[in-house]
């Protein structure tokens, strides 16, 4: 979510490879309004630190994920797309984590002290200079944290002391996460960010902002020497920028000496790249850039690319070899690895080729130059690190770039060949991107590349680069279509395209087909039916497809048409929930932020889960009566209300619960550490009990049956949807029944027989996990479904677990369940009816995000009722920020506007375009910023805005802003 919208700010002028990916997103939503202007939520969309311009240094990420168009909003990505993130996405998506606004240098240092080396934070020092504080490796006596200033040169930014310029700080950080340049070591995103594979993951993390560092989401690497951060390859294309300082000059020569990797993706100019392999190298004469992309700075003639010891011939040779090798390899590519697992090299490392140091293939037009950038150098260094050199030595030797160049010439040469390959792959990728959105997926399906030994070793051996790398690189390598020497401009009708699609669908668990399959499964518990559908799915996958941009939509239609309308509707709802410019999307987003912010404040798990369920129910009831949902319905498909509700429920599970699942489980674990001990202690007791002691009179599950049951329970644990968890629980129970009947076929077993065997089984399962699961299911399941078989077996499982917890071997066993358990069940029962009653009540709580004291700083999400006035909201802010006396204003249309204390907060919100405003809780006197505009124009209604503000709701449903209302739980207990 954070990434969403950000790119608009960052104004990538760079690689076109990023530009086409919006088309890779599955079916475009009809008539989505253009993204709102960007002032929105600075927490998530930090304004760019520096104005974007065309980039001299435009790293292109060769990663396992399709580069996302910087101007497209990732949050808009439909769920069916691959959600693998590029490193830039990660940087963008986690900005509120690594750049918590308002962070002081001191705080930054304190945060960093406990973090692994390479961890960094960006903050604004005095005089508005952005500093990046980096945690250095522990070396005796040296200060642990070093700050480097980000300086501005023309329209670019660079690290103080470095000559590498970037469009913006995001690209800069993204680069330094891969390559250290002048730093002691590459920057390292927090592990949780680095291993995030989906936007939701990032959303969860970034919603925490600075709190992330203190939260348990900030995982530590198990082994600090072995990080799992993806090893990313950046395509770097150096363009000299004339700088005013001598520093500039040195920078010009520096890159040149590193030109080993001549890579020239051609995006706009397909012909160029088509002919590329044979005749590409024209080192000294980079082709002209398209005028539109030329910045003033760059229009000066490029200096001769480099000093290279290389001849064009050697370069050509290299390239040819690379091509053929690639061809050979392609067919044998192993199945794509999962992104985070470090891979071993799949092929032999070819002998070090002669280094094409200087020659530069035709520059990608859009990349604005033909020069090479030293990016690889660092990669090489890293590689060497893993090859056994000691890091510290390395760092020492790397103190100066120039010295290092010489030192590592050999290494660079070796690296060069890899680069060549990479480059080829990249060209293809870029080409493909430019014309076929589908093809974009290809790079995202990593195939372990043969040549990446150094990097693999690297990621395995403890460099800072991480394990996504292999995939990333392979992504680039896999790209070339079948006939590399004459790569077609686009992979139209390419059989490989079809294959790639199939692979993609197979390997990407969140592909649209799979997702819809899941949804169908969710709606239909009949295993046979599901099997049939699986077959259909398989057939669909094998169908070769056309890889045209414009075919994309059609393809998607075909795919979804084969599946069920239900799934399609669910998918649309999910898209809507992720649409940052829809009212509902904002509601969902705010709900998530609110939940994450308040999650740690709950003292009981029931409370925590019930609040989430309550909000889900409210979101559901809002959506069911909203015009937003009506717009998604296809007139030719009529749904009953029940059906619609279950579809909405499924979609909400996916869009709301799924991203929250991990945080929820972590919170539950935190709240349950005590009871776990008891559970584990008694588990041993139960395990030691005889079957007679347990009251078992039937046969018990054999080993094989136990395994099957455990499989179901494990799967249950992974699942995020309460409904699907329950289905899996029922499947496990059915297996238990089956094994009970072994000795006595045909006999029906009632609870007398079943419960003891259930106890027997649970004692042999992961009870701690199951305990969380049961609670998760009980509290979060659709209240409309809290009766029936699932409910019975859920109760039984819960009861059995509680019984084990209080198990007494003396077995005078009338020990009562604890009061809490009884209460919990009581509340649960009661809540069903309450929730059902509420169904008709149109109860919607809304959310507002407030910043204080400046936009972008310290965001808090507050829950509001339709009746909440601005005054009440101000009071809430005072409480939440522990800061009284401030004023609440709304920032919209670029100005801070006052709001009347008697105004309804929701009315204010509804006047604004979703996402295009923010509330600010600030000191009363802010000269210059507060511009009173009594004639505030009505903001344009966004299509997705509900025609009316959310309906009023009964106040007793909410606690937050309804002081004086009886606490709900109490009411529940006193049935």
């Amino acid at each position, binding site marked *: 979510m954070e990434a969403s919208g950000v790119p608009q700010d960052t104004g990538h002028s760079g690689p076109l490879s990023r530009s086409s990916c919006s088309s890779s997103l599955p079916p475009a939503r009809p008539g989505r309004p253009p993204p709102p202007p960007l002032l929105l939520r600075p927490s998530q969309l930090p304004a760019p630190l520096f104005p974007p311009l065309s980039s001299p240094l435009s790293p292109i990420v060769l990663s396992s994920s399709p580069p996302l168009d910087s101007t497209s909003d990732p949050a808009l990505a439909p769920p069916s797309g691959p959600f693998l993130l590029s490193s830039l996405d990660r940087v963008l998506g986690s900005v509120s984590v690594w750049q918590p606004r308002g962070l002081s240098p001191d705080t930054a240092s304190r945060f960093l002290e406990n973090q692994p080396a390479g961890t960094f934070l960006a903050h604004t020092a005095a005089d508005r200079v952005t500093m990046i504080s980096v945690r250095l490796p522990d070396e005796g006596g040296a200060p642990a944290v070093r700050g480097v200033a980000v300086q501005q040169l023309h329209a670019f930014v660079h690290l103080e002391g470095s000559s590498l310029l970037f469009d913006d700080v995001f690209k800069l950080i993204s680069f330094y996460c891969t390559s250290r340049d002048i730093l002691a070591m590459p920057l390292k995103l927090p592990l949780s960010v680095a291993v995030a594979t989906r936007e939701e993951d990032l959303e969860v993390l970034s919603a925490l902002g600075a709190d992330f560092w203190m939260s348990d989401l900030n995982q530590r690497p198990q082994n600090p020497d072995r990080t799992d951060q993806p090893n990313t390859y950046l395509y770097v294309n150096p363009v000299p920028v004339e700088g005013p300082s001598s520093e500039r000059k040195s920078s010009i020569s520096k890159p040149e000496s590193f030109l080993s990797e001549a890579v020239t993706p051609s995006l706009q100019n397909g012909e160029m790249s088509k002919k590329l392999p044979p005749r590409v190298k024209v080192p000294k004469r980079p082709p002209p850039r398209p005028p539109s992309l030329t910045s003033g700075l760059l229009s000066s003639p490029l200096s001769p690319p480099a000093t290279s010891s290389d001849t064009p011939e050697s370069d050509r040779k290299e390239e040819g070899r690379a091509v053929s090798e690639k061809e050979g390899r392609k067919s044998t590519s192993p199945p794509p690895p999962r992104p985070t697992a470090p891979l071993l090299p799949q092929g032999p490392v070819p002998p070090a080729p002669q280094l094409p140091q200087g020659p530069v293939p035709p520059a990608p037009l859009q990349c604005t130059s033909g020069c090479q950038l030293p990016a690889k150098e660092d990669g090489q260094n890293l590689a060497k690190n893993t090859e056994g050199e000691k890091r510290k030595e390395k760092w020492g030797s790397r103190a100066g770039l120039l010295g290092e160049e010489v030192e590592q010439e050999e290494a660079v040469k070796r690296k060069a060949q890899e680069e060549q390959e990479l480059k080829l792959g990249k060209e293809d990728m870029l080409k493909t991107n430019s014309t076929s959105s589908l093809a974009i997926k290809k790079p995202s399906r990593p195939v372990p590349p043969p040549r990446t030994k150094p990097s693999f070793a690297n990621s395995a051996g403890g460099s800072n680069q991480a394990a996504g790398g292999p995939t990333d690189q392979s992504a680039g390598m896999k790209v070339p279509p079948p006939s590399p020497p004459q790569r077609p401009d686009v992979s139209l009708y390419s059989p490989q395209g079809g294959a790639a699609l199939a692979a993609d669908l197979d390997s990407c668990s969140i592909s649209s087909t799979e997702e819809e399959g899941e949804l169908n499964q969710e709606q239909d518990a009949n295993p046979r039916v599901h099997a049939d559908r699986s077959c259909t799915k398989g057939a669909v996958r094998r169908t070769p497809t056309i890889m045209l941009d414009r075919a994309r939509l059609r393809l998607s239609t075909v795919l979804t048409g084969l599946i069920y309308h239900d799934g399609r509707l669910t998918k649309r709802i999910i898209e809507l929930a992720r649409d940052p410019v829809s009212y509902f999307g904002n509601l969902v987003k705010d709900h998530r932020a609110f939940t994450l912010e308040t999650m740690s404040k709950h003292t009981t798990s029931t409370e925590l889960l019930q609040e989430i369920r309550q909000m889900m129910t409210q979101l559901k009831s809002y959506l069911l009566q909203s015009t937003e949902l009506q717009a998604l319905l296809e007139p030719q498909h009529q749904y009953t209300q029940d059906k619609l509700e279950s579809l909405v429920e499924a979609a909400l599970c996916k869009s709301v619960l799924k991203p929250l699942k991990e945080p929820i489980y972590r919170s539950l674990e935190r709240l349950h550490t005590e009871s776990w001990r008891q559970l584990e202690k008694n588990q041993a007791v139960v395990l030691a009990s005889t079957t007679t002691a347990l009251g078992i009179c039937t046969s018990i599950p054999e080993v094989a049956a136990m395994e099957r049951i455990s499989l179901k329970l494990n799967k249950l644990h992974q699942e995020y949807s309460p409904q699907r968890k329950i289905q899996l629980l029922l499947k496990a*129970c059915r297996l238990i029944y089956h094994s009970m009947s072994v000795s006595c076929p045909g006999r029906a077993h009632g609870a007398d027989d079943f419960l003891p065997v259930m106890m027997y089984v649970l004692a042999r399962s992961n009870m701690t996990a199951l305990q969380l699961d049961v609670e998760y299911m009980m509290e979060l399941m659709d209240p409309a479904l809290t009766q029936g078989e699932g409910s019975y077996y859920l109760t039984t499982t819960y009861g059995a677990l509680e019984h084990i917890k209080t198990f007494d071997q003396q077995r005078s066993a*009338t020990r009562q369940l604890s009061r809490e358990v009884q209460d919990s069940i009581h509340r649960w029962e009661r809540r069903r009816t309450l929730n059902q009653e509420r169904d008709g009540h149109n109860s919607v709580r809304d959310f507002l995000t407030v910043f204080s004291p400046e936009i972008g700083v310290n965001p808090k999400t507050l829950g509001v009722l339709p009746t909440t006035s601005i005054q009440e909201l101000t009071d809430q802010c005072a409480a939440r920020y522990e800061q009284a006396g401030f004023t609440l204003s709304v920032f919209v249309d670029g100005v801070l506007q006052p709001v009347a204390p008697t105004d309804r907060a929701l009315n204010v919100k509804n006047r604004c375009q979703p996402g295009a405003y923010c509330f600010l809780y600030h000191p009363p006197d802010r000269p210059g910023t507060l511009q009173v505009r009594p004639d505030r124009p009505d903001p344009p209604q966004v299509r997705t805005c509900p025609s009316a503000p959310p309906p009023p709701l009964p106040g007793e449903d909410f606690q937050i802003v309804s002081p004086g209302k009886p606490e709900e739980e109490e009411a529940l207990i006193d049935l």
Partner: protein
Amino acid sequence: MSSRGSGSRSNGSLPQTKICQFKLVLLGDMAVGKSSLVLRFVKGQFDEFQETTIGAAFLAQSVCLDDTTVKFEIWDTAGQERYHSLAPMYYRGAQAAIVVFDITKPETFERAKAWVKELQRQASPNIVIALAGNKADLAEKRLVEYEEAQTYAEDTGLLFMETSAKTAMNVNELFLAIAKKMPKTDTQNPTHAARHRGVNLQDPDAHSTRACCGGN
């Protein structure tokens, strides 16, 4: 099968059939025939209204009464003393309960009385409780006299029948009597009843929305 349902049945084609769904909990000592009783009910003549479930601990069955289809969700409990403490989870929220004892075992009658007491103290205030003296086919081994149980039931305001799961004696009658006693107007959300189908592994569509009617 023996006795027919005594309730009048409406024609299934009537569109306005009201559907009420109730949770019914089975209590009683181990081996008094709780499951058998319910299985007899469920597997008996009302077969077409039976919903497939994964096991006999939870069963669902609909019966028709006049213009109403009453769907019972039947929650069985483990009768072992050691699992007594779990019972409240099951009878919480139940609108009906059948407390079963074995007429050949007086101690099960005593236990049944204890259950009744507990239900009256802790369960929903409006819960409909039926007492079933099961194994009536074993009359020659009877140790709990009919009158004794009958008197107790009257004193405590219970429905009472002697039943035999083996011969099906009074099985359907018992459930129909309960169904008649259920407050039809009070069923939670009659309009939503069709939705309360829970999660069913095998037959998601076989729900109470079916046209009613029936048994014989």
